[in-house]
């Protein structure tokens, strides 16, 4: 408990510190985050504690990174206060304080995007959807207050509050059809990478946290659970699909977040609909592990884009060196759900739980998890291709190397963490540990179960060790190769133009033209993001409204805009606390 207070104090101080001196602010924030992680680990009560660890790590790495990145006087305070908001939301047990934290986290983000905006509407779109999310959550909370008569998170007898709030959280998670809220502001507003990281990694994390927390307090609803499950599945597919055909690094990552949040939502769906208690708890752990995997990997990749000069993969100019290359590859492999990384374990567990559910249900209902599972499987396929695209064109296909050490080192650390973390998930799956000494696995096995006997099992630790071991053995047997350097073979001609990221994913544009409404014209290939074109209309309405609003009340001057935000914040907090 002491740890928590310390952490919150440090985080609370950090915005103030940042106003005075940026570095000190970030340092305070890092320290606070570190303590927060410590708190999460020591007071490991249930899966929710894992959210603390994940969030804390994200903040820690991002803040340290920001020490070497930030280049704007407003950024420090805004960034740190946003984190403070998250910390509050994560740690409170009071509905309204949660909401307050939620706003404290969101509003600075509006401002940052407003400050960095390239296109005027992005900030407003983000704000619009943000507020929509808040309103829904508020409604859900009020309803819960009406039901339970208490302002703290407390067990519910009806699922209605959860349903309403769930939609609010889903908006924040950028779940289909709200995908646009995820990538648009980051990309078009072009938020600085450290903010992108917390926007995409930990802000959605808070939403997931809220969703999970509510779910834990709600009687497990059948139908709604299946809806979440299905919607999640489709988000995975479309998220990954659009990520694959995106050539803007941050859009790509944004969509990939949609994909991951979809998976997480599905996992929650499984928890809500699981026929057996064993399966329920398995999927709950899976949810938490998935959150951890996504937060860390996504943070890393966004920080990676922070080292890009040009955010288009078509001609990326990224400060790269051996460290960041290795880090990037590790992070990407986790993002593509490959063992032995955390991402791999999460993907494995999610798919297992889906199909276990299908098996245990053994009825017409099984169709839902099966179809969802199959769709997610396809999504994973796209995810792998997408991450390959990112690594190939951000790291391998560009020659611009740097000898900067610090930021690449941070990336590498994250990568190693996510690699080793795969084996560490062992701890979180405590109830599901197995072993088979007879066959040489005395420990390190995670078994997926829906009842007494196990369904399947993996040992990330062994997967981490064995291939490299065998590889080394192979080297020992056949020896190292005798190497001579020579230029790449390009059928006898010098290699003048390298393959582009656009061309890399063009087959899909041509093959799935119906889905993308591909059009080949005189000036190249055009595709339409169906969901964006939907949400864009909504956005436009909101833009025109806020344009009018800002003209009349804020003379469209940013300072006023900021002041308005802060006032709104204060007023809101006062209202809440009173």
């Amino acid at each position, binding site marked *: 408990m002491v740890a928590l207070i310390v952490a919150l104090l440090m985080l609370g101080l950090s915005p103030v510190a940042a106003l005075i001196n940026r570095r000190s602010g970030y340092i305070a924030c890092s320290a606070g985050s570190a303590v927060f992680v410590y708190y999460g680990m020591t007071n490991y009560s249930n899966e929710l504690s894992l959210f603390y660890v994940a969030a804390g790590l994200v903040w820690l790495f991002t803040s340290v990174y920001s020490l070497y990145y930030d280049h704007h006087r407003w950024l420090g305070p805004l960034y740190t206060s946003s984190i403070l908001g998250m910390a509050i939301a994560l740690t409170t047990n009071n509905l309204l304080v949660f909401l307050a934290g939620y706003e404290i986290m969101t509003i600075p983000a509006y401002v940052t995007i407003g400050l960095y905006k390239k296109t005027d509407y992005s900030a407003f779109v983000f704000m619009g959807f943000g507020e929509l999310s808040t309103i829904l959550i508020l409604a859900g909370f009020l309803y819960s207050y009406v039901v339970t008569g208490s302002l703290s998170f407390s067990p519910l007898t009806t699922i209605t509050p959860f349903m309403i709030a769930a939609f609010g959280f889903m908006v924040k998670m950028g779940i289909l059809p709200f995908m646009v809220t995820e990538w648009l502001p980051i990309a078009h507003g072009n938020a600085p990478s450290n903010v992108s990281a917390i926007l995409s990694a930990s802000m959605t994390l808070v939403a997931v946290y809220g969703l999970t927390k509510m779910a834990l307090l709600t009687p497990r609803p059948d139908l709604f659970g299946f809806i979440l499950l299905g919607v999640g599945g489709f988000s995975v597919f479309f998220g*990954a699909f659009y990520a694959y055909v995106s050539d803007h690094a941050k859009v790509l990552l944004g969509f990939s977040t949609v994909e991951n949040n979809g998976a997480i939502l599905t996992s929650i769906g499984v928890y809500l609909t699981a026929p057996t208690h064993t399966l329920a708890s398995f999927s709950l752990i899976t949810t938490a592990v998935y959150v951890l995997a996504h937060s860390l990997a996504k943070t890393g990749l966004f920080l990676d884009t922070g080292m890009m000069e040009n955010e288009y993969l078509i001609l990326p100019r990224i400060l790269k060196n051996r460290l960041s290359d290795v880090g990037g590859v590790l992070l990407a*492999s986790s993002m593509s*759900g*490959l*063992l032995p990384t955390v991402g791999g374990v999460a993907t*494995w567990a999610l*798919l*297992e739980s889906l*199909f276990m559910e*299908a*098996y245990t*249900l053994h009825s*017409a209902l*099984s*169709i839902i998890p*099966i179809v969802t*599972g199959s769709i997610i499987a*396809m999504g*994973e*396929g*796209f995810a*792998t*291709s997408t991450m*390959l695209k990112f*690594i190939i064109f951000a790291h*391998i296909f560009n020659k611009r190397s740097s000898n900067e050490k610090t930021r690449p080192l941070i990336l590498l650390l994250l990568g190693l963490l996510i690699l080793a973390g795969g084996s560490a998930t062992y701890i979180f799956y405590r109830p599901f540990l197995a072993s088979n000494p*007879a*066959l040489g*696995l005395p420990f390190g*096995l995670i078994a997926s179960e829906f009842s007494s*006997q196990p*369904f*399947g*099992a993996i*040992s990330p630790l062994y*997967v981490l060790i064995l291939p490299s*071991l*065998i*590889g080394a053995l*192979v080297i020992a047997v*056949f*020896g*190292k*190769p*005798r*190497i001579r*350097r*020579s*230029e*790449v073979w*390009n*059928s006898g001609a010098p*290699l003048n*133009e*390298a*393959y582009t990221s656009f*061309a*890399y*994913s063009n*087959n899909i544009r041509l093959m799935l033209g119906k889905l993308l409404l591909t059009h080949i014209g005189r000036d190249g290939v055009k595709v339409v993001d169906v969901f964006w074109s939907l949400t864009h209309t909504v956005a436009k309405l909101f833009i025109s409204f806020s344009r009018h609003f800002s003209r009349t009340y804020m003379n469209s001057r940013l300072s006023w805009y900021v002041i308005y935000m802060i006032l709104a914040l204060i007023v809101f907090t006062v209202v809440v606390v009173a």
Partner: protein
Amino acid sequence: MIDQMVEALIQVLGTILVAPLYSGIAEKLKGVVSLRRAQSVLQPYYDLFKLLKKETVVPSSASELFVYGPYFTFGVYVLISFVIPVVYPRPVFLTPTVDFLGGALLFSLVSFVKVLSAMDSKSNYVALGVSRAASFGFLAEATLITVFFAVAISTGTNNPYVESAYASNPSHYLALDHLLATVSFFMLWLFETGKLPVESQGLSEMGMIDDSLTYEHSGKPLALLKWGGYIKAYLLGSVWLNVFLLPWGGQVGVLGAFFDIGLMFAKWMILIAIVLVAETSLAKLRLFKIQDHLAIAFVLSVFSLLFSVI
């Protein structure tokens, strides 16, 4: 413990050392059917042996990934050969490392590393092939996962060995879901191993898909990639034989393990016969028709999933 180790050894060596032979036999027969005397069935071994002795040319801007990636992928393949029933019908040493789905994820780990290693050469020809492989990947990977689950769901466990035993029961074997999964997996196998009607090892660079992944490699790494390719074909093919098409006849015990190698040979002759007919009577599909081929495989596997629970 010791017995399991010996059995494991037999299974793994039986995979690594015998795998190239099946490719050799298949190529020989294909040659004979196409009016030629054709090369020796041991040709794959000759090629590997020679490549292991050759120099390795590395593109100027490539990194260690290009050189040592193949070693790693080979390691993963060897690990998989511990895990799935490719020779011995009972779990052997280290088998529980991953289950069936885990195996599928290991296969995609291999392709991930393979692609990075190949792309590290920065060759446009590699990129051309990779971009194709990547755009079919989503269906291939999905089918691999669903088809593995197809059996998992009917047995209630994701342990391939149990599934093999389960499928050997005629009533389960003839069940619709099993048959669908069998067909689906075979179609996938054709894609994964670059067989007609999906791909054919020709000289034309323009048609490359899988071949592009070895296009720039040479010497030892190339040998390991080729060898890995043989092993992959053997692993997937044997799973298909032992879990789907012919889940019978596996003997236990150390002696049994030796017998099983012979048994696998017999089973493989059947697979090779089927493939031979396909390879000699089909022509290569147009590029974008390949996704139809895979889509059918995927849909079949999903149907088999549905039938197994309803």
